[in-house]
């Protein structure tokens, strides 16, 4: 214990210093993130874990952002995808419903604010838009509700479908939303088609922080709430009903679990997380178009859930972080590094890298990465890197009305 405590504190301190000293080094930032994972997994008392993570996320990360703004951007993106992964986790991981069109809910949330929070709505309604930026906060809730509603609409017809068919139908829905987003610029211009919508308003920032920092903290806050909601749902008769549905739908039904209601609830909850993040996303990006909401994104979120562990909250966090960092930093870093090598005309194994075809760009190979993650995980570790922990209940404490949950220590 003591050893772990010392190591974790050291890891966090050293890695954050490393980032401060080498702001351009991707490796340093990765080390910093690695140290956070270490803090999560180490055998240290809960208070130390909470303190370290709190300090790292609330203090160190923004400081790192001061040294290199891009890292803060990466952290914010990670946060957004963590929320998405947690949402999909409910649908796929808990309830066992393979939704391949999940990004549609993200799109719905994003377009909801984009339309009303930009001058675009004037095209539809004649005038009066954009709304005052403060409305953004109202739209956080509104986007959540619209997405949840879409989730229920999607859920209703697909309820009776099983496994494969459900997956394909949700895929179809996702594609329908994408095509609609691309083409609903006539007869009434709702989405402005492939041109996208811009400029989207941002709410006024608080306490004079920069927008980078503002969105970082906002995302962090929402992710915190999402995690809380997830845990409470998981640890209730609703969460147990979802798992029962995933395990054996027939038996669940025979035990009195109302399938329709539970499945719709799963869809609605999952969709609402995507919806609220969609609103944040559009305000942060200031510009959205249908290109951000394709099948690739849906599979990306699925890869996150699979990598981390289906039905596992820490798994979703890890998966989202790993995949986002992979895309935003590692692949991109590889591209940049390769370009440097090409420019320097480095020779590898007798081959001059300057001769590499110009079309070859590692940053574009997200699909290959997602694909490999999915296949390799399914074959070698389908339960994910941080599998869902069967929460051990201490029955002896049942004398008190509050059953104590003891989370089994990770291997």
């Amino acid at each position, binding site marked *: 214990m003591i050893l772990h405590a010392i190591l974790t504190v050291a890891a966090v301190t050293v890695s954050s210093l490393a980032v401060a000293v080498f702001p351009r080094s991707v490796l340093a930032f990765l080390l910093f993130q690695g140290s956070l994972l270490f803090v999560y997994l180490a055998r240290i008392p809960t208070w130390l874990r909470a303190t370290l993570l709190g300090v790292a996320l609330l203090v160190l990360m923004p400081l790192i952002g001061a040294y290199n703004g891009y890292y803060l951007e990466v952290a914010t993106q990670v946060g957004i995808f963590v929320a998405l992964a947690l949402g999909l986790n409910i649908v796929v991981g808990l309830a066992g419903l393979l939704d391949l069109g999940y990004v549609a809910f993200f799109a719905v949330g994003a377009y909801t604010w984009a339309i009303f929070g930009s001058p675009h709505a004037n095209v539809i309604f004649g005038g009066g838009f954009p709304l005052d930026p403060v409305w953004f906060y109202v739209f956080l809730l509104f986007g959540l509700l619209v997405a949840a509603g879409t989730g229920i609409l999607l859920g209703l017809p*697909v309820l009776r479908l099983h496994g*494969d068919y459900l997956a394909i139908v949700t895929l*179809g829905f996702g594609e*329908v939303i994408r095509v609609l987003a691309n083409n609903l610029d006539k007869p009434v211009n709702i989405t402005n088609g492939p041109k996208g919508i811009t400029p989207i308003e941002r709410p006024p920032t608080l306490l004079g922080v920069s927008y980078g920092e503002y969105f970082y903290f906002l995302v962090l806050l929402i992710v915190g709430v999402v995690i809380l909601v997830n845990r409470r749902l998981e640890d209730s008769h609703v969460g147990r009903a979802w798992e029962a549905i995933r395990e054996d739908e027939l038996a669940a039904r025979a035990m009195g679990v109302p399938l329709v209601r539970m499945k719709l609830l799963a869809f609605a909850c999952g969709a609402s997380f995507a919806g609220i993040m969609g609103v944040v996303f559009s305000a942060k990006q200031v510009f959205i178009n249908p290109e951000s909401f394709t099948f690739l994104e849906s599979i990306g979120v699925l890869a996150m859930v699979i990598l981390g562990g289906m039905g596992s909250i820490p798994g979703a966090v890890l998966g989202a972080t790993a995949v986002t960092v992979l895309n935003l930093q590692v692949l991109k870093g590889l591209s940049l590094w390769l370009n440097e090598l090409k420019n320097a005309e480095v020779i590898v194994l007798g081959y001059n890298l300057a001769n590499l075809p110009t*079309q070859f760009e590692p940053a574009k190979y997200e699909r290959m990465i*997602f694909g490999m993650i999915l296949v390799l995980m*399914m074959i070698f570790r389908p339960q994910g890197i941080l599998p869902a922990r069967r929460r051990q209940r201490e029955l002896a404490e049942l004398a008190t009305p509050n059953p104590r949950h003891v989370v089994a220590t990770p291997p």
Partner: protein
Amino acid sequence: MLDWPLLIGILPQVVLDGIILGFMYALIALGYTMVYGVLEFINFAHSEIFIVGAFVGVEIMLGLKSAGLLEALPWPLILLLVLAAGMAASGALAVVAERVAYRPLRGAPRLIPLISAIGISFFLQDFIRLVESLWRNAFNLVYPTIEPLNHRFELTTTIDVSVKALVVIAAALGMLWLLHALVNRTRVGTAIRAVAEDQAAASLMGINVNRIISLTFLIGGAMGGAAGVLFGVQYGLINPYTGFIPGLKAFTAAVLGGIGNIPGAMLGGLVLGLLEAFAASYLSLLTGGAFGAEYKDIFAFSMLILILIFRPRGLLGEVVRERA
């Protein structure tokens, strides 16, 4: 009001387009339906197996072109060569995919091999891109034209059809007939049908189930590869991502006909092709330009959703019941 002469005037062309599209969907759909029949598994990667055939075909043709042979050799020979190569490549790829990514997961709950298949699909898309980027520094490729194929016949004053279209239709028909003969008139075909009915019983009858499954992937993949070559010949432009949408639509066709049912896949393909051609041509005319051909994709997807919800067994399929 509706311009009836125009609407009727374009009808033959629409029907022709629909038939060509339909046969192509049918060929791809066969791959889905055969695999589903034998394993109850949707081979999500089939859309990439399809497009690999197209790529192998284009590479051969581009190779012939740079060797100056494209004009020299008779076009039926070129076509046969390209078809054979495409079929072989796609078939082989399908078998490899099965061995590597599906067979290890055969006992697992249904979601797991499906996710693996999705992974293979995505992997292959970028893999093709990688290979083509390194080999040719381009991955948006165009099928070189073969002059004789572009000649157009005039059937009547308003309808003309290109040699290319006729060739594609003939080739597709040939493939379909070959498959029909294989499945219904050979021992191998009977074995495939037996395994599709009841794996356990088939193996008790002495059938090597694993070999038959590999063979099924081979044949289904080959059909997809043939479709890929014909797709390239007919439409010209391909890239590693062009397989996705036709693949999804072909799956719709397979479901429409009754998944697992081979004649169903052929029928479903044709029906979907015709419906889509009609949607593409008439939607814009009927709605006064409000909703045009770009909605034809939604049309196919909506079809899929509606079939799966209201008649999941499709047109020719059987009802599947779960026993408690």
